[in-house]
């Protein structure tokens, strides 16, 4: 696809004999929500790690808006508009929710090699952070220490942090992981709101959410993409049913 925002071309990764990414190719168009599903151990998180630059890939390439970013480390990719969330919540627990997000705004806004002036009092950063928090539905919790937020709120905080980096592509690694029913509905609603405004790669186990949100779905099994298509295609695909949906769909 020539107009893909994010494209992955025959990416490989193995740990010794264990192949975790086996010639993975996929594309994400601007505004598209591309879901990645697959059984446990299929290499979904590894894929997100490689896309975000946390893990290097052995071969193959990743490009963002036509630019090759295969060799760029994570901070550099983040500055170019690749934001991510983590399967296991990754926040700064000792900072307030607002400061967690303000740091993301700070990363984009000029140099951070400034040694004077209290960063916590910079109105521009705080306003941007507040806007991202409100967007994630956490406006009321801005001054709470992030470590004491509920699990669902932490998931939303991760989303707010990602939004504050003003991303072009959002890489979301199981944003619903560990959330209760109410919380997962809240996060799903947020994702539906964000859909279309950003290109999103969504790794998720919650099939209900995936089929409700995704424009396209790729199925990853043992590190290999065995099928890519619309949710309807995937539901009807016999090899997908066999490999993954088997019991659930039956």
């Amino acid at each position, binding site marked *: 696809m020539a107009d893909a925002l994010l494209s992955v071309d025959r990416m490989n990764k193995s740990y010794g004999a264990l192949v975790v990414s086996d010639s993975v190719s996929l594309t994400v168009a601007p505004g598209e929500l591309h879901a990645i599903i697959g059984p446990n151990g299929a290499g979904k998180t590894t894929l997100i790690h490689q896309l975000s630059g946390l893990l290097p890939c052995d071969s193959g390439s990743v490009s963002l808006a036509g630019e090759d970013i295969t060799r760029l480390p994570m901070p550099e990719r983040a500055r170019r508009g690749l934001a991510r969330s983590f399967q296991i919540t*990754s926040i700064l627990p000792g900072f307030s929710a607002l400061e967690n997000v303000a740091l993301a705004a700070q990363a984009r806004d000029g140099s951070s090699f400034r040694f004077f002036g209290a*960063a916590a009092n910079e109105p521009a950063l705080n306003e941007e952070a507040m806007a991202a928090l409100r967007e994630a539905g956490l406006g009321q919790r801005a001054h709470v220490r992030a470590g004491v937020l509920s699990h669902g709120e932490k998931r939303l905080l991760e989303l707010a942090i990602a939004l504050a980096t003003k991303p072009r592509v959002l890489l979301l690694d199981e944003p619903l992981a560990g959330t209760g029913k109410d919380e997962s509905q809240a996060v799903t609603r947020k994702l539906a709101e964000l859909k279309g405004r950003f290109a999103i790669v969504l790794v998720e186990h919650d099939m209900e959410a995936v089929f409700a949100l995704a424009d396209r779905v790729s199925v990853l099994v043992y590190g290999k993409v065995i099928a890519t298509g619309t949710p309807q295609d995937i539901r009807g695909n016999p090899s997908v049913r066999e490999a993954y949906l088997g019991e659930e769909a039956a």
Partner: protein
Amino acid sequence: MSAASADVSAAARPSRGWTGRDIAIAVVFLLLALTPLLARFGAEGFLVGMMTRVMIYAIAALSLDLILGYGAMVSFGHAAFVGIGAYAVGILSAHGVNDLLIQTMAALIASALFALATGALSLRTKGVYFIMITLAFGQMIFFLAVSLSAYGGDDGMSLSGRSTLFGANLFSGVTPFFYLALACLIGIYLLCRAIVASRFGRVLRGAKENPTRMEAIGFSPFRYQLTAYVIAGMIAALAGVLLANQTGFVSPAYMAWQRSGELLMMVILGGVGTLVGPIVGALAFLLLEEQLSHITQHWKMIFGPFLILLVLFARGGILGVAAKLSGRRDG
């Protein structure tokens, strides 16, 4: 505003009022400033000298707290920088350069270069490896000093006199030198405080809590950590400049690993990541050392276990205990 006010972090809100810590440090500085006056009434002339020593070590401990408490960099070679500062004074004065500003500039430049080179390598490692590699670099410069036979080698060397400022011998008296050290301490404390609260400091603190998160939003922690390491090294070198001047003597012992250990103890004793703690810690450490050594020559037998007990049972050091006590009283 949220109802859960107990969960609200104090640091998160811009506050104009004085916190308990602000009052504590203001009292400490005020008492220090009055020390020469108090000493005049008693016969304890040594008190001013003793407190000068405390302040010099407080500056070094403060710089260690900057990287340890806010950057999670446990350096076991921090005394090397104190030694570099002291040797800058010693070597220059051996060649007839006695001006304090020139000596200080030389100390800052030498320590910055050393910190840049060793920090760039040390920061490739984490945890206990970082401790060991900083220890190794500290020992390296220690043995370099021992081998400097032209500058006294193992025995060190005496200085001909205190450093001068633009040719004037301003700091030869005990009291003027005391106030020089106090001015440096206050200046360094305010500097560190500004750094910690600044954009730079926020990135450093964030990288301490969760480096992966910081990378995911676009920061490379290494650059910030290395910069902090260099700043801390330069501040410790300033302490070295003062120390050489106070003792009138420079020796490799200043950068022995035991000195690095003592600096760590001062920070831990006072309270890691507080900036006030290291100052209180240096005071407590050196006064205890002084008092115990009067009681018995085997004072380290008491001092060692005491420190271990304190670290085990008084989490957060003296400042942590004080905060807990004042919190109980307020509650």
